[in-house]
C-alpha cells in the first residue's frame, strides 16, 4: 500500500509542480506581451496622438482604479509626457512608480511647477473631458492641485485630454493586433465548446456561458433566459476572452436540425448567403482615414445598391419592403477593456462624437452586423435573424481578417 501512496504522491507532486511552473510561465509571458505593447505604444502611437491633437504636454494623473493604469504603466502618480521635438516623447512620472523601461524621469509631485515651466508647453492636455467620455478620470481634488501647481500662466493652457487618450488607445501596434487575434481564437474555441453542450429539448439558454440568444419569426428574443433550446432554433452565441487590459468577444451561430433534417434548411442557407454577400460589401468599402460617420453613410449606400434595406435599430422594420432583407450594423472597436464606447465606431449607436473620429491605420474592430431576412412563406412580417461578430483590422490594403471569420452556420443534430 505504501508503494501506491508513494506513486500517487510522486504523480500528484509532478502535476502540481508542472501546473505551478506552467502558470508562472504563462503569467510571465502575458506580462512580457503587455510590456512590449506598452513600450511600442509609447514609441509609435504616442507622438502621433499628441501631434494630431496639437498638444505638446499631456499630464495624466493616475490613481488606483484609473482605466489607463496598465496602458501608461503607472500605478499612482502624475504622468507627464512632453513633446520636446524629435521622434520620441519625453516621459516622466512625478510622485509615483512607473515602468522603468518606459519612463525617462522619476521625480516628486512637488517638482511639477518647475518641470512644466522648464518645458514651457503651449497646450497641455489633462485627463478630463468635455464630451462626457470615459476618460474624464481626474478627481476634482487632483485637478485643483494640478492647476494650482501650474500657476495661472500654464493653467490657462490646459485643455481636455480625452482625444489624446482616444487616439493613444485606438492606434494599434502590431503586437496588439497579434494579441487581439489570439484572444479571438480563444473565444472561438470557447464558443465551439459551448455549442457542443446543446441537447435539443434539454439545454436552456442560461445553461450556456456567454451571451446566448434566439429570436422567433416575429423577432421576439430570448436572451440567456430559461428558454429551452428547440429543434429548428437558430442560436447566436457571443463569448469573450481577456488578458489583463485586453478583451475580445466574437460570435458563433448554430442551427438545431429538426427531426428528419440532415442539412441546414433552405432559408438558413439563404440567410448565410446574405451574411457573406454583406460581409464582402463591408470589406470592400472600409478604409483607414474616413470617419465612422462617413464610412457608415457609404456602407448604407452600398447595401442599398445591392438590394438590402439598412436599419438603424436591430429590429425588423415592418414598414420596409417585405421582399428585401434588412441589415443592421454596429462596427465598434475591439481589443481593449476600456474605450469600447470612446473610440471610432461605424454605427448608429454610441456617443455622437465618436462617429466623427477617423478610422486609424491598424484599427481593430468588429464586423458586428445583423441580418433580418423575411421568409414570406411563413407569413407577413415573419423573418429569420442572425448576428455575426468577427474581429478585423484595417491595413493599408483595407480590411483584413487576422484569423478566419465565421465560415458556416453550424448544424446541431
Amino acid at each position: 500500500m505504501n508503494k501506491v501512496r508513494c506513486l500517487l504522491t510522486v504523480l500528484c507532486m509532478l502535476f502540481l509542480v508542472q501546473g505551478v511552473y506552467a502558470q508562472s510561465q504563462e503569467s510571465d509571458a502575458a506580462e512580457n506581451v503587455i510590456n512590449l505593447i506598452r513600450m511600442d505604444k509609447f514609441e509609435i502611437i504616442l507622438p502621433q496622438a499628441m501631434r494630431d491633437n496639437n498638444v505638446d504636454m499631456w499630464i495624466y494623473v493616475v490613481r488606483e482604479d484609473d482605466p489607463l493604469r496598465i496602458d501608461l504603466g503607472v500605478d499612482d502618480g502624475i504622468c507627464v509626457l512632453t513633446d520636446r521635438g524629435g521622434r520620441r516623447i519625453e516621459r516622466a512620472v512625478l510622485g509615483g512608480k512607473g515602468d522603468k523601461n518606459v519612463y525617462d524621469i522619476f521625480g516628486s509631485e512637488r517638482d511639477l511647477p518647475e518641470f512644466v515651466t522648464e518645458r514651457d508647453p503651449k497646450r497641455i492636455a489633462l485627463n478630463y473631458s468635455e464630451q462626457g467620455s470615459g476618460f474624464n478620470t481626474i478627481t476634482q481634488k487632483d485637478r485643483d492641485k494640478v492647476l494650482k501647481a501650474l500657476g495661472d500662466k500654464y493653467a490657462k493652457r490646459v485643455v481636455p485630454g480625452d482625444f489624446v487618450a482616444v487616439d493613444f488607445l485606438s492606434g494599434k501596434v502590431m503586437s496588439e493586433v497579434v494579441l487581439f487575434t489570439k484572444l479571438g481564437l480563444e473565444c472561438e474555441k470557447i464558443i465551439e465548446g459551448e455549442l457542443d453542450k446543446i441537447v435539443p429539448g434539454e439545454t436552456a439558454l442560461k445553461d450556456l456561458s456567454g451571451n446566448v440568444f434566439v429570436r422567433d419569426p416575429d423577432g421576439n428574443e430570448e436572451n440567456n433566459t430559461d428558454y429551452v433550446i428547440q429543434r429548428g432554433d437558430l442560436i447566436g452565441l457571443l463569448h469573450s476572452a481577456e488578458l489583463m487590459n485586453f478583451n475580445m468577444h466574437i460570435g458563433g451561430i448554430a442551427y438545431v436540425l429538426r427531426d428528419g433534417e440532415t442539412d441546414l434548411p433552405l432559408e438558413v442557407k439563404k440567410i448565410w448567403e446574405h451574411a457573406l454577400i454583406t460581409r464582402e460589401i463591408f470589406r470592400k468599402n472600409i478604409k483607414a482615414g474616413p470617419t465612422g460617420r462617413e464610412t457608415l453613410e457609404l456602407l448604407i449606400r452600398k447595401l442599398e445598391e445591392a438590394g438590402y434595406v439598412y436599419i438603424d435599430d436591430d429590429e425588423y422594420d415592418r414598414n420596409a419592403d417585405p421582399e428585401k432583407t434588412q441589415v443592421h450594423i454596429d462596427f465598434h472597436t475591439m481589443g481593449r477593456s476600456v474605450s469600447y464606447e470612446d473610440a471610432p465606431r461605424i454605427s448608429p449607436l454610441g456617443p455622437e462624437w465618436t462617429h466623427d473620429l477617423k478610422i486609424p491605420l491598424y484599427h481593430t474592430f468588429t464586423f458586428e452586423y445583423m441580418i433580418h431576412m423575411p421568409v414570406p412563406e411563413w407569413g407577413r412580417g415573419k423573418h429569420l435573424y442572425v448576428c455575426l461578430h468577427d474581429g478585423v483590422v484595417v491595413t493599408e490594403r483595407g480590411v483584413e481578417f487576422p484569423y478566419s471569420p465565421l465560415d458556416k452556420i453550424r448544424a446541431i443534430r
Partner: protein
Amino acid sequence: MKKVLIVLAFFCTLFLVRGSSAQRRDSDVMLNIEDANYGIFEGDAPYDEVKMLKHIRLERFYLILPRVMREHNIDMWIHVIRPWSWGGTDPLRYEFGSKSGVFIFTDRGDDRIERVVFQGRVQDPGAYDIVRGRSEFINQENYEIMDYVKENPDKVLESELHLRFLGLGDFVAERDPKRIAVNYMETLSFPEGSETFTMALTDGISYTDYVQISKALGDKYAKRMVSAEHVILDYLSRRVAAEVVLYGSLRAQGGRSRSFGNIVPGVTTLGDIRGGSVVNKDGNERSGDNYVIQRGDFISGWQGSAYVLRKGETDLPWYIKKFWDDDKKIREILRRNIKVGPTAGETLKLLARKLEEAGFVYTDYQEYNKYVDHPEKTQVHLDMHAEGKGILAPRFSSMGPKWHWNVKIQLFHTFAVEYMTYMRVPEWDRANNFTGQQLSGFKHDGMVVTGRGGEVPYPNQSDTIHIIQ
C-alpha cells in the same frame, strides 16, 4: 495493487489520448508542409492549424494575388508542381495547398483572379473556382485516362506524355491571355543559406514539361510564355495580416524566458538553468551542462542573459554596461531605418551608414576584425533575412546571392533581427596575449515592417540583463 494498476492505466490512457490527438492534428496538415514555411509550424500552435492555414491561403488569394499579377503585367500564371517529386521543394506548395498539380490563375478583369487546379489534388478545394476542370482534363493518377482512351479511340496520341497537359490549350485559348507566366527560371539562382535548405524556388518545370506545355498551348500562346520567377518571388515575399499574427503568436509561444533567480555561484551549473554559454571574467567562453557558474560570468543564450557580480561589485562592470547600451542603440537604428519600399540592398547600405554615424563599425564579415582603423569601436555584422516563408529574401545582409538584396521590402515583411556585435575589452586582450579577445554577442529576434516602420510582433527574449548578487 489493483489501485496502482488502475492509476497507471489512467495515466497511460491520458498520455495515449494526448499523443494520438497531437498525431491527428499533424496528419491533418499536409505531410512536411512545414518545410515550406521555415519551421514556423513546428511550434505547438494554440489554435486549429489547418483552419488558420486555409484562411491565410484565402486571404493571400484575395489580397496579394491580384496585386502581384497586375504589377508584373501578367494575365495568366501557370504553376506546375510536378507530381513525381510529390511536391519536393516547391516553394508554393503551402501557398496553393498542394504537393502536385497544375495551377492556373487568370486575371479576367474584375476584382479577383480566377483560380483553377487543372490536374492534381489540393488540401482546400473551396479556395479554387474549378478543381480538375472539365471532364477532358484528365489526371493520370486514376482510371479516367483508360476510360478516355476507350471512349475516344480516334484521339489516342502518339505518346501518353501528350496527355500530361491535355485540354490546356483550349482552356488557355478561351481566356486569351497576353502574357503567361510559367514557373521556370531565367535569372535567379538557387542559393538560400544556412537557415533553410535549398528550395526549387522558381525552377519548377522540367525541359519536358516546357516542351509539352508549349505543344499544348500551340504556337500562338506558347510565344506568350514568360518566366514566372519574379511573380513567384513577389508572391512569396508579401504577407497578409494573418501571417503576421501567426508569426508573432508562434514565435512568442516558443520563446519563454528562463529564471536566473536561483543561481548560486560556485554551485549551479549551466545545465541547471537549461544550458547556454558564459564568458568568464577573462573573456574566455565556457559552455556545457556541467560547467559550474562562477562570479564574473556573463551568461547568454536564447532564453535571456545574466551577469554574476564579482565580490565587491555592486553593479555591472563597464564592458557589460557598454555592451548592453550598444545593443540598445543598434536595435533602435535597425528599427528606425527599415521601411516598406526600398530594396534590401538599399536598406543595408542605409543601415551601415547609420551604424557608422552612431559610432559603430559595420562589418561585412561575421567575425571580429582586430585590424580596423578604430578598434575601440564596437563592430556590427547584419544578417537580417526573411522569416516565415522558406526563402531568405529580401535579406539585409552582405551574404547570399544578389537577388536577395534586390527584392523590395513589402508591407508586413517578417524578418529575423539577426546581428552580431564584437566589442573590444582591452583588459581581456592583455590577459590573452593580445590575440583580439573581445566580447561578442549574437541576437536573433523578430520584426515586421508596417507602414510605420519596424515593429516587434512578439516579446524579444534578449532585451534585459539580470544581475545576480
